[in-house]
Structures are given as C-alpha cells and as structure tokens.
C-alpha cells in the first residue's frame, strides 16, 4: 500500500527523463519498425519492382538515383481497358453493398422490432445461409445467369451476391 502511495501520477510525471527510459523507448521503436518492415515486405518488394523499369534481372532494392516511374503510365497505355475494369469494380461493389444494406437492414428491423409468430423460424431461415458455402450455389447460379442472358453484364455479377452478408447483420442487430 505504501509503495503505491509513493508512486502517485503527480510525482511520476515530474521525474526527469532518464537515459535508461530513452534507450528503452528507442529500442522498442526499433523492434516495432523491424516488425512493420517484415509485414510490409511483400508490398515494398512489389513497389521496388515497379520502379526498376524493364529489366530482366530485377534486384531487391531499386537504384534510388534513377527511379523509373514509367511503368505506372505504361500500364494505362498498354491496357486501355484498365480504367473500365476499375470502374466495373466500383459499380459492382457499390451496387452489392447498397443492395445488401437495404435488404438486410429491412429484414433485421422486422426481426428486432416486430413481434410476430414464427420469428424464430425466419431467424433460422436467414442464419442458415451462412452454412451454405458459395461453391454449393455457384454452379446453378452460373447456369441461371447464362440462361437469363446475363453473362458478361452487371446484373449477372450483382444479383447473385445481393443477399450474402444478410445473416450477419440480422444476427448483429437482433441479439
């Protein structure tokens, strides 16, 4: 008890910075930086490769005196569809997210705030979809999308994935 009384926050703050704590902090930052570097290594490696220009013998580190940024412009020039692909990703993910938000929040509202007979059955109806892996539905979905003529279209990419995250949001707001 007496020990904790001596080390009140007030006296602790007033203590001058000692060399020991300084070295310790520097050491901790050093360790954290090494760990962070290890985690980022694959990304940094890819970045390093992208800055070395066309070479058949890339090295781990680029030559920092002549960094070659031309690859980034080149990729858009040589692959004119790239912008279209990026737009596609945005359209599909935006539509799927919005669709999931709307359908699942409506259903979750009913489950959370309305008291109706058969609620438990509906809850398990939604939760049961978590147990079905996408591999078990992708083949009939693919065949259905083909039959509808939706192949190579936005609706073909969006519609089958609209209800995916549903059960999670339902369970989240119900319990």
């Amino acid at each position: 008890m007496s020990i904790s009384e001596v080390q009140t926050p007030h006296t602790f703050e007033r203590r001058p910075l000692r060399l020991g704590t300084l070295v310790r902090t520097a050491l901790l930052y050093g360790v954290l930086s090494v760990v962070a570097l290890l985690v980022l290594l694959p990304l940094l490696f890819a970045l390093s490769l992208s800055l070395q220009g066309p070479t058949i013998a890339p090295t781990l580190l680029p030559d920092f005196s002549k960094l070659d940024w031309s690859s980034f412009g080149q990729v858009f020039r040589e692959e004119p569809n790239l912008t279209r692909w990026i737009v596609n990703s945005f359209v599909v993910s935006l539509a799927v997210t919005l669709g999931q938000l709307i359908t699942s929040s409506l259903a979750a509202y009913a489950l959370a705030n309305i008291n109706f007979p058969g609620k438990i059955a509906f809850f398990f109806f939604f939760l049961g979809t978590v147990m079905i892996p996408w591999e078990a539905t992708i083949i009939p979905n693919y065949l259905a999308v083909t039959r509808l003529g939706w192949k190579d279209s936005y609706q073909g990419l969006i519609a089958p994935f609209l209800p995916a995250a549903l059960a999670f949001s339902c369970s989240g707001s119900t319990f």
Partner: protein
Amino acid sequence: MSMKPGAQERAQVGSQALPAPAAGAVVLPDAAKAAAKRKQQWKEFGRALLFMSPAIVFLIAFTYIPFLRSIWLSFFVTTPQGATARFNGINYYTRIFNLDGSGRTEYLKSIATTVYFSILVVPLGIIFALALALFATIKVKAIAVFRTIFTSSIAISVASASVIWALIYSPATKATQWLIEVLHLSSGSLLQDSRTALFAVAFMTTWTALGFNFIVTLSGLQAIPEDVYESAQIDGATSWTSFRFITLPLLTPTLLFLILINTIQSFHAFTQFNVLIGNEGPDNATDVFVFAIFTSFWKDNRYGFASAMSVVLFLILLVLTFIQFRLLDRRVHYQ
C-alpha cells in the same frame, strides 16, 4: 416470447388502435378477445413479412434454390449446357470417396491436401497474429502508426496478394533463391517443387489473412482488464506467467473464433491456387478440393460431378464447424 422494450410499446399502441370497449361496457368474452389477438398477430406478421420480403426473395432465388438444385444436379449426368441428361444415382459420390472400387483416389487425396493446407495455415496465422498483437500493445506514443501498418494486409485482395507473391516466388526476381539453395531443391521456384509448393501457398495465405487476424486478436487483448495484470504483478507474476495464465485463458474465445473462421476460409481457398499455381501443380501437391471443383466445373463442364463435390464440401464444413464448437467450447474460459 421475449420482446424488446420498443416492440412492446409499439404492440400496445397497436392494440389501442383496435376498437376498444367503451368505459363501463361489458368485458368482451374470451373468444372475442382471442380472435382480436389473433387478428393483431396476423397484422404484425404481415408487416414483418413486408420488411423481410426483399431479403427472402433474394435468398430463395440465389441461395436456397441454387443449393437445392446443386443437390439435385449431383445425382445426374449433365449436358454441357447444364441440363440433366441421365440419372446417375449416387455414382458421383462413390467416385469421390473411392467407394466404386476403381482405386482412383485423386479426390480423396485432394480432400487430404485441403486438410493439410488448413493445418499449415490456421496455427501459423494465429501465432503470427498473436505475436503482432502483443507487439501492438507496447506502450509508446506512435503505436497507432504501427497498428495501422500491421492491419494493412486487410486492404489487399487475395488476388492482388497472389500476384505480389507470384513475383516473390518467381525465379526471375530471385527473391527466394536463397531458400531454394538452403533446401537443395532442383526446381527453379518454390512453387514448382512438390515438397514446398503447398507450404509456399500456405505462407502467402497467412500473410493475406494477417491483417484480419491481427485486428481481432488485438481487440481481444484490449478487452482484458488492466487490473487483472496489476494484481498478478503484485502477486509476483513474471510477464511469461501472466501471459500463460491470464492472457491466453481470457483470449480463448477470440482464438476459438479465429480458428473457426480461418479453418473455414482455408477450406474455401481457391484464388491463390488459381493465380500462383493455375493448374494441377507439381505432382498434384497443391490440388485442393475447391480447385478440383473448379476444374470439373469450368474446364470439364461436368456440372453434375462438380455439384456432387460442392455438396461434399458443404457436408465437410458442416461437420467441421460442429466438431470445433463441441470440442473447443469446453476449454473456453468466459470471464
């Protein structure tokens, strides 16, 4: 029937909206009361159904019907257009499990490869995440920066990560040349040798999952109250003993969750195999089950057979989840 406070209020408001007996009037007989109550219940049911209908329509159309159709298709030989051609009974299932006496075990082997893959990925991923999370609890000022860096792989899709690691493993970049020399491999790449290919993909997968595993573990660590450690310290606990007897037991719910999610994900793993290996791989060493499904679905157009495999995968995942819940639930310490 449990009701939330809000629902209860609304339900009462609803019942007041019904024609209420005037003050001093004779109390309604029980039968009439019950009828009114039933009418009220049906009204609530209709309202709830209205809210749930978009979700129900989509789930039936794109999850439940396709799932039932997968089961249906798995008993048929199909045309390349996906129509059923001939009833096949359970032949596809006996073929997968080598019960037809043909001695062809490639599908049983691919299940074994998948199990081996998840045995590599799950413990490795959780150990890395736990170590990172412990580093992220170091009390220095700029710790938020390091936490952001440790989480960064969550922002990279499996496909992009696979391309990055394809560069790392590529013999052209020579980034893993030292490892090939240390292990005395004869092939030019870790991915081309049947002894290292699966391990290489597993290591790449742990890196991809690191961000998610890290952030979940860290939130689990931060949920442990500080005073537990303080009182242990007063009792003379070293940092190892407080990790062993406080952190680990109190973290088990989090770790159980991660084991479950990671096992299921490793059974689903496909993208990295498609990008890094792209084919059956060296001596079928990387032929995981989902890749076998993909091959018979996409390359061979054998929809019936692919459906049978996906039903098997569904059953495996169902059993796995059940076993893990039963086994690990007993050892979990909830505070």
